[in-house]
């Protein structure tokens, strides 16, 4: 009788008040022929102690970053999460509330999301941020359709080959029926081939999407991409890593019209891929094309500053089929995590994390390329992640690492195809990501494990 209040006496009283002899009477509106006979075939109910034992047993049959030493990347990273993030987001007043339809009863969430928007604007150097989307891949996809609406161009969209190939798939899934041509520029030396990119852009291009650092960890010339986009009247969409902005120039300062990100690195646990956080910010002129929730400041009837859901005329519950997106909720609790994370970091914390990742990744690259047979896939600069390749299958190196308790990768053949890389290239290449949590000792031992 988990979480139910009913006592036989109260149930009888309630049925009497309703005026029916039994609950079955209330179910008669469901045609008898459609009712399920008997109970569903579900596993037996467990008490809390049984559930705890059952789940602990299964959890013990999985080993993640807390037990193994994680050098995995590809868009999700084992960054440090300050305790304060868990403590604040664990407050029932936040995690058991819902979308702030009643502003008077939701000022806590509304102000936190307004703060989230403010922090994301400062982080990206752009004017407006929404209150978050599902995750990085769908944020790219939403940015692409937003660019189509803003430019009134449906012909094509051009993605740099370094955009995460799962996100490329997401974009393709979403624009398939629009007859929009999704063009992907190949990588050369692990970064965008700018000559090839220029050939794909024309006066029907709604946007160019560039990811920086790209899926291989390499740094892209974002300013060159935005110049190309603007030359053709297209928008420039930059997919960024929030933590990289501790050292790298902000998307808004490099010509981005729309900036999007996977916000997992902002205090969100790995948890096998989600929930994560979709970040989306843009220049002021596109605000009414934005998808998703938007919080605005206003005053109440006594002139007191307060916060409300704003510009809802863009949204599905008002505009229905003419809405800017079908998205209903934001990713509230994850946006709160990011807000508390950034508030705890401050400018210096963010800079230190980014620098630590960069220093450790470069040390790791030096040690790992000293392993006989391994070399960097690209000579392009990188920040916290890089791709290695060799004459052997990537699986060979991954198996060696795994046997010694290290996780490296993903092998590029675990990802969808990357433009400009053959299947054979991908079979031989894998990623290594180094966060602030990895130590010199971790790196030295990984290099030793791969050397033997």
């Amino acid at each position, binding site marked *: 009788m988990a979480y139910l209040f009913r006592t036989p006496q109260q149930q009888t009283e309630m049925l009497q008040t309703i005026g029916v002899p039994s609950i079955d009477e209330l179910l008669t509106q*469901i045609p008898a022929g459609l009712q399920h006979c008997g109970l569903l075939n579900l596993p037996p109910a467990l008490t809390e102690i049984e559930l705890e034992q059952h789940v602990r047993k299964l959890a013990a049959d999985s*080993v993640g970053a807390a037990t193994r030493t994680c050098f995995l990347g590809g868009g999700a990273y084992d960054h440090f999460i300050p305790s304060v993030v868990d403590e604040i987001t664990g407050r029932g007043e936040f995690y058991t509330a819902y979308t702030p339809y009643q502003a008077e*009863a939701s000022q806590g969430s509304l102000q936190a999301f307004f703060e989230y928007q403010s922090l994301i604007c400062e982080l990206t150097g752009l004017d407006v941020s929404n209150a978050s989307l599902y995750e990085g891949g769908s944020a790219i996809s939403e940015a692409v359709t937003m660019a189509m609406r803003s430019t009134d161009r449906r012909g094509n969209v051009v993605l740099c080959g370094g955009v995460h190939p799962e996100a490329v798939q997401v974009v393709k899934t979403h624009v398939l029926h629009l007859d929009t041509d999704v063009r992907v520029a190949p990588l050369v030396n692990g970064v965008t081939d700018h000559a090839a990119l220029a050939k794909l852009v024309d006066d029907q291009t709604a946007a160019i999407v560039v990811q920086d650092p790209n899926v291989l960890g390499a740094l892209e010339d974002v300013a060159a991409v935005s110049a190309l986009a603007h030359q053709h009247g297209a928008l420039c969409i930059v997919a960024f890593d929030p933590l990289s902005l501790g050292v790298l120039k902000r998307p808004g300062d490099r010509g981005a019209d729309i900036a999007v990100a996977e916000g997992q690195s902002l205090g969100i646990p790995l948890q096998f891929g989600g929930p994560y956080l979709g970040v989306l910010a843009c220049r002021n002129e596109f605000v009414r094309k934005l998808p998703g929730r938007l919080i605005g400041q206003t005053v109440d009837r006594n002139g007191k500053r307060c916060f*409300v859901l704003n510009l809802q005329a863009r949204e599905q519950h008002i505009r229905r089929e003419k809405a800017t997106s079908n998205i209903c909720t934001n990713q509230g609790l994850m946006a709160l995590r990011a807000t508390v994370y950034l508030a705890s970091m401050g400018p210096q914390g963010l800079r230190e994390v980014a620098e630590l990742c960069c220093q450790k990744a470069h040390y790791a690259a030096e040690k790992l390329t000293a392993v006989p047979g391994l070399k960097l896939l690209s000579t392009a600069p990188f920040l916290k992640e890089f791709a290695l390749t060799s004459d052997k299958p990537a699986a060979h190196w991954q198996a060696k690492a795994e046997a010694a308790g290290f996780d490296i990768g993903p092998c590029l053949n675990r990802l969808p195809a990357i433009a400009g890389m053959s299947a054979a290239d991908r079979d031989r290449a894998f990623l290594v990501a180094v966060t602030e949590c990895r130590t010199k000792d971790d790196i030295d031992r990984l290099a030793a494990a791969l050397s033997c």
Partner: protein
Amino acid sequence: MRNTQAVQLLSELSHTGRRAETFPPADVPTRSLNEMIPADFLAAQPPQLPELTEPDVVRHYVNLSTLNMSVDTHFYPLGSCTMKYNPKRHERLAKLPGIIDVHPYQSPANMQGLLAILYETQEMLAEIAGLPAVSMQPAAGAQGELTALLVASAYFRDKGEHRTKVVFPASAHGTNPASAAIAGFDCIQLPATANGFIDLDALRKAVDKNTAVFMVTNPNTLGLFEPDIAAAAQILHDAGGLVYIDGANMNAIMGITRPGDFGGDMMHYNVHKTFTGPHGAGGPGSGPIGVRDFLKDYLPGPIITKTTAAEGAVTYDLTTPVKSIGRVRTHFGNVGILLRGYFYLRTLGAQGVRDAAEQAILNANYLKAILAPVLNVPMGKYCLHEFVASASDVLKSRGISAMEIAKRLLDFGFHAPTVYFPLVVPEALMMEPTETESKETLDAFAAAVQMILEEDPEFLKLAPHTLPISRPSDVQAARQPVLKWTPCLRD
């Protein structure tokens, strides 16, 4: 006493030089950034985030949290949102190592336990839906709708059929038409019967060989089971179309009837609602979809497959269906929310699932009955898990609108019902008490509504009177949008 200390905006609390988090110096030989990264790419300074100590951050957010109403603290009968209790046992379990620290690109061999949980979740969702194939990729109900429509689209394309229309009743959630439009369909809205149900004649007229999908919420947004759902499904199936069940209201029917049993070909769940996600102040959600066998090859991947070797060893793996529509997001899905759904279903078992639905129905009908003397419910003698009352009569007789009742309820410590939805009921107050509320709470809520209806209408127009703010101006917010903090906002 409400504490308003430290609830200014973060940037107003900031003092140069403060910080909460520090990091150790690098333990590797270091180089200058300029040696590693081209100067052109480097920022002169990091973004100017606020500077705060950890106690600053904690007092700020803890005090902000107390400005919220939530299920933990208040009765929250927000219709259509299933604001049920979120069990605490879920939180500790979801944070276990081996669950929370699993990287999406780890080797599947190292996450067999987690995959076993997710596989079992997949199976339980299929059983409750009566639909055999499930994809857990969608991040929320709206993404589930879109995913299912893309699946339908791929299915028809594969059959060489070009179907352009999606049909739905006027009472549909806004996400239905929005999703259909994004999936590239023309949206056809149907009128309802006088009782708010599917109008079979209108449906027959609307459905033809160009109709791809009929999207319907059942029980509908009035909290009533569609009496003609099977006949409606037959109309679609006769025309070669598909039926999509919006699972928003599964809390009413889980264990009692199944979308697959009443004609649905596809459906989505809202795990954050029906299976206690939680709601997280507006997400994250999780919107898995279930489909019939003939649609399973089009599902987005990865899904989890189970292989049992001859000697009995079980292996779980991640696979993508052969004709998959592709991804709707990166990575597997909103695993953190799916896990809570798993813990919930394992706690309830089959009997518990049915009990929860029955108790939700009992609570809704009880609340409806005790409110009946003061608030009219135009549609339905009995309801399922929710009902839609109308303040039309009291608006006429006393000048009290649905919004005024909603706002004043906040003063009594109750979250407001959903107001002005669905549109088919004037002055709508949509109430969904859920199964995890006591008779005492429902009695107190009804007593509050009665008191409110006797209050001075002018007094109600200014409600709430005891909350931190009252009646924010949406007009001012929209006229000159202030969407981020700037120094000139400082009080």
